[in-house]
């Protein structure tokens, strides 16, 4: 009888609170309304007398009124702040336009007088083109969570990524390592090759680390650098007149060569037009299905689906506007186990990478763009048909194929084996 009365009080309280949620700002209601109701349910689960249930109901309603007023005050102050910030931004923009107009005028006067030094410096700075230099460095951290059956593991990393026109470099450090592992990874694209550099925590096999040299401007997925590159430095890929296929973020099978997945994406409206969201689809025509352990029936099921299976989703959590360019404030990338979706009808998330931008500076980090190693490195060079395997001691990673065989400027290089 008593528990029945308490249940009635609880249900009435929940019903009224559901109505009272309309008093709260919509943003709060949408995000926290469900959680507030769950907390009320939890609170009632610990109440065993009618007097306490009535007391709790009064406490909850009083709290609802005060917190609704507080939330509205907070939302109002934010809007006022936004208005003030907009006014300041407008004034700043106006002053910047005046200053730029003045600079442009004075620059034109210099050129008219035959002073071309400023133009030639600009070309040298960009390396390959006279376009306006686009340079920035992003510092941040990300959390990678992998979920397999009942086992889940989370690791936190910090990163630095720098972009100078088409050149980019990124380094990733594991913040809290559960075991002593190789935790620092650096990857550099210098306009010609990508060098991935993995120092060992302690020397192994007479080497201080490994380096992999490849052609092309797409990073490899080592150390999550491809995921960071997608968020912060992939503008060149999205600027191309492209079909609806993208290079995959993680290698899912051991096929040689690049793999591309069907994808849909939206881009930020402001330069450098980085992706705002990307959805990768599991495409039976593209993936090597038997390697995933799929039966022929399952492959057929996937092929017949009207809606393709989602393999991974990327979403930027917002964009900054620093010096006229928009970079993500962070992003969330989730991967799904497609086979489970066929079995159960719902996708199962197997990994999640959540990145957060901590600092942006509008200059590149030249130190990071150096693909130089200190110590003795085993190098796997895959730019030829066969992989060259050699050792490099205290030197730069060679940036031309010819340099591997004929250029004696890399005098410290010691051949370790003939081409495989």
């Amino acid at each position, binding site marked *: 009888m008593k528990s029945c009365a308490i249940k009635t009080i609880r249900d009435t309280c929940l019903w009224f609170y559901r109505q009272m949620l309309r008093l*709260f700002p919509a943003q*709060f209601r949408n*995000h*926290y309304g*469900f*959680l*507030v109701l*769950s*907390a*009320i349910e*939890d*609170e009632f689960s610990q109440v065993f007398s009618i007097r306490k249930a009535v007391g709790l109901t009064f*406490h*909850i309603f*009083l*709290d*609802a009124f*005060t*917190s*609704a007023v*507080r*939330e509205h005050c*907070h939302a109002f102050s934010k809007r006022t702040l936004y208005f003030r910030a907009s006014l300041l931004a407008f004034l700043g923009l106006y002053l910047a336009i005046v200053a730029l107009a003045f600079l442009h005028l004075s620059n034109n006067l210099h050129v008219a007088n035959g002073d071309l030094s400023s133009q030639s410096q600009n070309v040298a700075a960009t390396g390959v083109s006279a376009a306006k230099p686009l340079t920035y460095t992003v510092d941040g951290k990300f959390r990678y*969570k992998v*979920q397999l059956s*009942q086992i*889940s593991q*989370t690791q936190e990393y910090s990163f630095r990524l720098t972009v100078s026109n088409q050149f980019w470099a990124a380094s990733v450090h594991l913040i809290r390592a559960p075991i002593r592992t190789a935790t620092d990874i650096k990857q550099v694209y210098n306009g010609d090759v990508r060098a991935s550099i993995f120092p060992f925590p302690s020397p192994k096999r007479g080497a201080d680390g490994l380096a992999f040299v490849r052609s092309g401007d797409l990073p490899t997925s080592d150390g999550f650098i491809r995921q960071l590159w997608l968020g912060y430095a992939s503008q060149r890929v999205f600027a191309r007149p492209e079909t609806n296929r993208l290079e995959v973020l993680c290698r899912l099978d051991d096929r040689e060569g690049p793999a591309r997945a069907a994808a849909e994406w939206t881009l930020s409206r402001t330069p450098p037009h980085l992706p705002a969201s990307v959805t990768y689809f599991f495409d039976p025509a593209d993936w090597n299905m038997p390697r995933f352990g799929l039966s022929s029936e399952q492959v057929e099921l996937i092929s017949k689906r009207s809606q393709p299976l989602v393999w991974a989703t990327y979403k930027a959590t917002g964009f*900054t506007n*620093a010096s006229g360019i928009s970079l993500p*404030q962070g992003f969330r990338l989730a991967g799904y186990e497609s086979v489970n979706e066929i079995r159960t009808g719902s996708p199962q998330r197997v990994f*999640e990478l959540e990145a957060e*931008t*901590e*600092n*942006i500076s509008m200059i590149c980090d030249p130190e990071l763009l150096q693909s130089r190693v200190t110590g003795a490195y085993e190098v796997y060079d895959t730019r030829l048909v066969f992989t060259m395997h050699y050792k490099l001691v205290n030197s730069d990673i060679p940036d031309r194929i010819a340099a591997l065989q004929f250029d004696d400027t890399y005098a410290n290089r010691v051949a370790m084996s003939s081409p495989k």
Partner: protein
Amino acid sequence: MKSRSADDFLPLTPAVFHILLSLSDTDRHGYAIMQDVDTTTKGQIRMGPGTLYGTIKRMIEDKLIEESSGDPAEDQRRRYYHITTLGRAVANAESTRLYSIVQVAKQRGLQTR
């Protein structure tokens, strides 16, 4: 994008400080925070659900706490919260501030236990 220093947040409201204290040893969901605050303050501070989630919302905006994935074995409806490095620094700074006030009270002959 430069983040605020810990001292910029001081003094903290009791709700913020108690939520930070509650999350300082482990990740908790909303109701667990309410229970922990109720226990540690011996019922002196009793946060309602509206106050709790309003405070949590602002603390997430200020990057003092963040949502964490929590224990997958637990109820999937629950959302867990995790104290950030900044949040921990702010809690430390507030503790130091309160401690110095207690020291002043002691020096002036006020009874402290």
